[in-house]
């Protein structure tokens, strides 16, 4: 049973560029949430996708956008990169039918903005 997968593992970009990160949920899961984790901090919620729609959004600017595909995989796009966007980006998947909404995390994408 494959867990949550993310690609790429690492990414280096320069300020002003755009980046796309990808996530495939755990088998049987239909909901994908994205988090940003700065060094030494807990994960910060960016947004959650279910049925190909953004269902909830955290306190992140519009430069952060996403998409969910019919196969439940998801992309996170960040435009006009800033130095402060350097972080570990985590994707977590869950199954909407479970009332407990347990989220399982992928290994993350380490983004460095120079």
């Amino acid at each position, binding site marked *: 049973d494959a867990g*949550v997968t993310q690609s790429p593992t690492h990414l280096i970009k320069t300020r002003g560029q755009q980046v796309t990160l990808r996530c495939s949920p755990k088998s049987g899961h239909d909901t994908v*949430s994205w*988090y940003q984790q700065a060094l*030494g*901090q*807990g*994960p*910060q*919620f960016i947004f*959650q996708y*279910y049925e190909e729609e953004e*269902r*909830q959004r*955290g306190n992140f600017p519009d430069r952060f956008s996403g998409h969910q595909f019919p196969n439940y995989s998801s992309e996170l796009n960040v435009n006009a990169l800033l130095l402060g966007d350097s972080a570990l980006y*985590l994707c*977590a998947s869950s199954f*909407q039918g479970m009332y*407990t*909404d*347990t*989220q*399982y*995390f*992928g*290994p*993350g994408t380490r983004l460095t903005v120079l």
Partner: protein
Amino acid sequence: QQPVQSPQAVILREGEDAVINCSSSKALYSVHWYRQKHGEAPVFLMILLKGGEQKGHDKISASFNEKKQQSSLYLTASQLSYSGTYFCGTTLSSGSARQLTFGSGTQLTVLP
């Protein structure tokens, strides 16, 4: 809205016990506990729903005090493998869109 974790860091010897607390100023629906090792993804440990239940597996257990809006994670007879940063994540709503808000973490180091 972010839950407050305490202590920020703890150092133990193998076999010793530890307690990590997670408090919220808001009424919680659920508390999720994760452990993250350096350079790795957070790993799910357990979830507690409002109702004051207590859960556990192996020598790690947790409780949820609904009156105090506080959860505690108990690590008994700690092992070297318990080292890592422990995060609690909380949800406020029982609705369909349950946003997890994480605390800043507790760094646990178990020494031989």
